């Protein structure tokens, strides 16, 4: 397709965490984004979660900044309450018809104040709370919703007209019609997420009949501080605090009877998290988890599992529960199950069903409209080597729509899909995005402050409690206030115009708005004053709604007094505000990729295809890494041929320079401007770094006669032999978790179970009569990999489980290997003679990580893998900007996952490389050089390594601390440590905060000038 036909825009379908990540990456890389969401607001499933594993982070806390960033991005158009109707065209140039359902509220006029819902007489159950709580017929899905606009539920509304009367912004439009939009885009990303399995289908568990049997997503709402019981765990039948709670795993997963043979990948971890959090809520809660295999396969998940058992005392019962029955009087529940061959019964007060993940209900419809293939289980079909591509060119996929997966993998794929979507239209990057132009900034230097105060009624949200007119009159009496007024809605479009007029009319050089919270509205007002020629930082807000009128509703006098105080505090700070400039940093649009395995090769090639110069450094003589050593993939795809093809493409690409047999010796600089010296002497200037140094297979240190008997080998060594047809025998024994899940290496290596299935199936393929035994602790073939476990079982591979503490014993007798293992099920010893003993040995980090980490100022885990910026939502980033992470360097993972991360790192990197300059934070630390004596006490307090002791250029004797604004995030943690008062935080200077403190404490002396 000719460049002229390509469209520099992308449509993202589904506004959960996946869609938001794709949208933000693309919009930050020079593409216009249309984010289509079927609900009235974005956020998806993650918005419903209470906490997230394995860090127990509050889901809304970590997600809210992404929600707000997506909602505000001027190159992201949100099309919510909408669905895809028609898709025409081809990769690079699609025309998509979108049907947007009626909100019955003018979304432009609605300010989200919520007065309508307060008065709406109709209550109905709230889907967001899984129907555990009520909402009104006019509603937002959840309090933090983006966009924050109300919608009328047409099925429930009785048309009484109260909301229209109540709405001072006149936003209610009962007769609003459905809209049909036609949008032109170059690529499409599908991230519609998943649906939960309907637990009613498993009638033996009593869901829907017994009140105290709840689904896991309902339990998530029960745990949440914003849920029906405000975070107290109460059982639905009588509101009592349950003592014993049973969690039943695999409800609708690994179960051919209900049609879902795959494993849902996330339930083991989320149930463990729910049990831990429930226990944290109330010390007497005793959770038990009934499971088949504990699949804690992710980064540091096994440590979480250990803590759940040892620190929280959560009981784990290895059994599939047969049935649940209810005591009609107490509503308690009895579980029937078999443990270690013995039938048992136990009573619980509450049961939580860990429901599996299903393809979304509209999957088939989407597949029909968009013409891409679904797999046998109804998820979007992908391949190992194209993990984020659907079968139709130009349409990409991420998140749980392609397979059940957790949030970090979803976020990585979301970035990966964004990279692929961007590559398709890289030649038209930047053609459809807009950059906002502002008038030239007026200088306020040397001027006496002239402050304008705008006090908001917020309809009746503030004015119904606070005497706003009194606050306005009071504001007029404050020093330097030259204008004060009351507004019905300060955030409405007409008020923005009014603010601009008043700035001109009264020559205002500071603006204070007293209304709602700066967290949501400060950027709006800052934008307004910029449009009037004022620096954005000459703005201050007083939160007299969320933190005053709404929390002191029955104390109008006190609330009015508090509003005055808050305004006085804001004015006091405002008088001392200074214009701040967001410094610009130049960007060198070249990338350094360290590590030439499949991950590094994929990253390098994708960046090169987008037109960036790439330097690919590999310490070995050839590219390829671990992947060719796999020889087989369980899906039948050929890893060796794939790497050869990649290698060919890399040599043919002019944008890539390959450096083999060398390593990085020194890396200096910061985002946009790194300088690297290789051990071989070459110097490279680049703007970003991608760390893809991979990992290695653990070589057992004498365990199970490894190194003593030549027929004892690791999985990779065995596959090598198998591929050369050198493994000739009749009996094979595999031992799992060698060097994983042990004292010094507590975590799971993720890939060995599936790797074992691949080898076992290959043996059976070559010789169906071969005897194959797998000795294991938990089989962790998550997702669709469960199929290979099943296939191995059906082909006669024998699986024997041993207890963690009772490892198998291996002896050599008359040249033959003998294995003794105590079968956990029967408690009896089993003797096996074998020709080959294969050790599924764990994945270990590369030692290079320890050398690279200090050069780039990035952390590593105690095991030696790189530690990302945030385990959940920033899996490929570091706190140090411009440095990214992918593949096994992050932790053990499969080829498809490594490729997804490699592409994800590309997307993260292009958010920097696609810009000529980066804007640094305006609120950063600043050093007053005269006062600094270079003691360096502040240096270790900085988490971002933005402070450094340097020699004073003017005085060779003197030392100084320098702030690197490219790295500073503006937290201000360093400021308090400075013994000489040389450090300060722009926008939050000591003097500014003192002014607020002093103003706050002058309750009864309002007219007195604030002392500086």
């Amino acid at each position: 397709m000719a460049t002229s036909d390509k469209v520099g825009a992308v449509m993202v379908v589904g506004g959960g965490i996946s869609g938001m990540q794709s949208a933000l990456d693309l919009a930050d890389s020079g593409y216009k984004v249309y984010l289509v969401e079927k609900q009235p607001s974005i956020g998806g499933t993650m918005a419903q979660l209470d906490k997230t594993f394995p860090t127990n982070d509050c889901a809304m806390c970590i997600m809210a900044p992404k929600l707000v960033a997506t909602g505000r991005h001027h190159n992201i158009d949100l099309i919510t309450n909408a669905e895809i109707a028609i898709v025409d065209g081809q990769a690079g140039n699609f025309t998509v018809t979108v049907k947007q359902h009626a909100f019955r509220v003018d979304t432009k006029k609605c300010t989200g104040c919520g007065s309508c819902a307060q008065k709406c007489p109709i209550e109905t159950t709230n889907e967001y709370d899984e129907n555990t709580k009520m909402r009104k017929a006019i509603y937002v899905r959840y309090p933090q919703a983006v966009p924050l606009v109300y919608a009328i539920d047409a099925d429930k509304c009785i048309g009484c007209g109260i909301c229209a009367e109540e709405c001072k912004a006149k936003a209610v439009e009962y007769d609003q019609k459905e809209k049909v939009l036609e949008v032109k885009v170059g690529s499409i990303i599908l991230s519609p997420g998943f649906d939960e399995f309907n637990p009613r289908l498993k009638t033996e568990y009593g869901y829907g009949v017994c009140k105290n049997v709840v689904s896991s997503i309902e339990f998530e709402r029960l745990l949440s501080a914003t849920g029906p019981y405000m975070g107290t765990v109460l059982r639905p039948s009588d509101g009592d605090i349950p003592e014993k709670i049973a969690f039943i795993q695999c409800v609708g997963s690994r179960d051919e009877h209900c049609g879902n043979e795959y494993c849902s990948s996330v339930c083991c971890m989320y149930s463990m998290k729910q049990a831990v959090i429930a226990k944290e809520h109330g010390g007497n809660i005793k959770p038990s988890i009934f499971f088949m295999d504990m699949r804690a396969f992710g980064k540091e998940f096994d440590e979480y599992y250990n803590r759940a058992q040892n620190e929280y005392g959560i009981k784990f019962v290895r059994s599939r529960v047969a049935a649940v029955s209810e005591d009609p009087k107490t509503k308690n529940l009895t579980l029937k199950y078999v443990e270690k061959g013995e039938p048992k019964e136990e009573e619980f007060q509450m049961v939580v069903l860990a429901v599996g993940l299903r393809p979304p209900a509209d999957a088939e419809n989407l597949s029909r409209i968009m013409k891409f293939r679904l797999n046998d289980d109804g998820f979007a079909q992908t391949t190992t080597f194209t993990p984020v591509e659907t079968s139709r060119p130009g349409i990409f996929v991420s998140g749980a729509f392609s397979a059940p997966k957790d949030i970090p993998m979803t976020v990585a794929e979301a970035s990966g899909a964004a990279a692929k979507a961007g590559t398709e239209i890289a030649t038209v990057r930047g053609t459809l995005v807009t950059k906002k132009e502002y008038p030239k900034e007026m200088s306020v230097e040397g001027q006496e402050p002239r402050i304008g105060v705008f006090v908001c009624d917020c309809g009746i949200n503030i004015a119904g409690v606070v005497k706003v007119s009194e606050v306005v009159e009071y504001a007029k009496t404050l020093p330097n206030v030259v204008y004060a007024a009351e507004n019905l809605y300060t955030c409405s479009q007409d008020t923005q115009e009014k603010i601009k007029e008043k700035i001109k009319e009264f020559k205002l050089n500071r603006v204070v708005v007293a209304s709602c919270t700066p967290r949501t509205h400060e950027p709006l007002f800052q934008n307004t004053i910029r449009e009037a020629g004022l620096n954005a930082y000459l703005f201050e807000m007083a939160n007299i709604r969320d933190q005053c009128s709404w929390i002191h509703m029955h104390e109008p006098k006190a609330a009015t007094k508090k509003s005055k105080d808050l305004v006085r505090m804001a004015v006091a700070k405002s008088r001392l505000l200074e214009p701040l400039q967001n410094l610009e940093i130049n960007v060198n649009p070249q990338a350094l990729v360290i590590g030439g395995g499949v991950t590094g090769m994929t990253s390098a090639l994708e960046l090169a295809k987008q037109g960036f110069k790439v330097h690919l450094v590999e310490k070995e003589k050839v590219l390829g890494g671990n992947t060719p050593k796999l020889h087989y993939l369980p899906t039948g795809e050929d890893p060796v041929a794939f790497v050869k093809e990649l290698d060919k493409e890399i040599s043919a690409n002019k944008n890539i320079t390959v450096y083999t047999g060398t390593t990085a010796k020194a890396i200096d600089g910061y985002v946009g401007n790194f300088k690297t010296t290789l051990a071989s002497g070459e110097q490279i200037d680049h703007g970003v770094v991608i760390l893809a140094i991979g990992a290695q297979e653990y070589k057992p240190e004498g365990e199970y006669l490894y190194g003593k008997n030549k027929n004892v080998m690791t999985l990779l060594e065995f596959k090598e032999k198998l591929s050369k047809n050198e493994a000739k025998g009749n009996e094979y024994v595999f031992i799992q978790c060698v060097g994983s899940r042990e004292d010094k290496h507590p975590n799971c290596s993720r890939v060995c179970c599936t790797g074992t299935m691949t080898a076992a199936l290959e043996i059976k393929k070559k010789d169906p009569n071969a005897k194959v035994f797998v000795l294991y602790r938990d089989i962790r073939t998550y997702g669709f990999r469960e199929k290979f476990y099943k296939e191995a079982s059906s082909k006669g591979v024998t699986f024997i489980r041993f207890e963690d503490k009772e490892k198998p014993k291996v002896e050599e007798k008359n040249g033959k290997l003998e294995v003794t293992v105590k079968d956990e099920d029967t408690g009896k010893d089993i003797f096996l003679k074998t020709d080959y003993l294969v050790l599924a040995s764990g994945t270990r980090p590369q030692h290079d990580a320890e050398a690279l980490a200090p050069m780039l100022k990035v952390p590593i885990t105690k095991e030696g893998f790189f530690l990302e910026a945030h385990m959940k939502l920033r899996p490929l980033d570091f706190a140090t900007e411009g440095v990214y992470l992918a593949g096994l360097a992050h932790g053990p993972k499969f080829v498809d996952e490594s490729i997804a991360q490699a592409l994800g790192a590309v997307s993260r990197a292009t958010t920097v490389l696609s810009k000529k300059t980066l804007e640094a934070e305006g609120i950063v630390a600043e050093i007053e050089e005269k006062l600094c004596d270079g003691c360096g006490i502040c240096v270790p307090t900085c988490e971002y390594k933005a402070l450094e002791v340097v020699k004073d250029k003017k005085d060779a004797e003197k030392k100084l601390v320098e702030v690197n604004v490219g790295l500073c995030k503006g937290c201000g943690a360093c400021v308090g440590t400075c013994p000489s008062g040389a450090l300060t935080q722009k926008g939050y200077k000591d003097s500014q905060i003192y002014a607020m403190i002093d103003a706050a404490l002058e309750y009864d002396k309002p007219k007195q000038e604030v002392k500086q």
Partner: protein
Amino acid sequence: MSSEAQPQTTAHATGVKEPDPKILVFCCNWCSYAGADLAGVSRLQMPPYFRTIRVMCSARVDPEFVLRAFQRGADGVLVAGCHPADCHYIGGNYRTRRRIALLKMLIQQFGFDPDRLRLEWVSAGEGEKFQKTIIEFTNTIKELGPSPMARGDE
């Protein structure tokens, strides 16, 4: 801790109305300020005697801010930050925790009851915890009565 009603009874008995307590709250932008907002969105009611100053991170709360507040007559100072491990700036809250522990010892030497200074973790999802913290802290301060600074002034 006795009930909220008790100090009021004493005040009535002596015939002098105790002045409203003056409480200063420092909230970090990412967790506790968001938690305070959520309390508002959820319409959770609480005593109106506190005034909040928003900082980017609780670690920005310079010990001198707290001392200044007490010096200017604050009856109580509450510092609220993200839960351990939740800090938006990685580990700022750990510094806050150490600083507040030291400050509590310091203010005691100046004759302030260490309970007049409190550190609390409030996440963006914990509107209810913010409410509970404000109610409890207000009660504590009411029980302790006006700050020694204020009494000295009068």
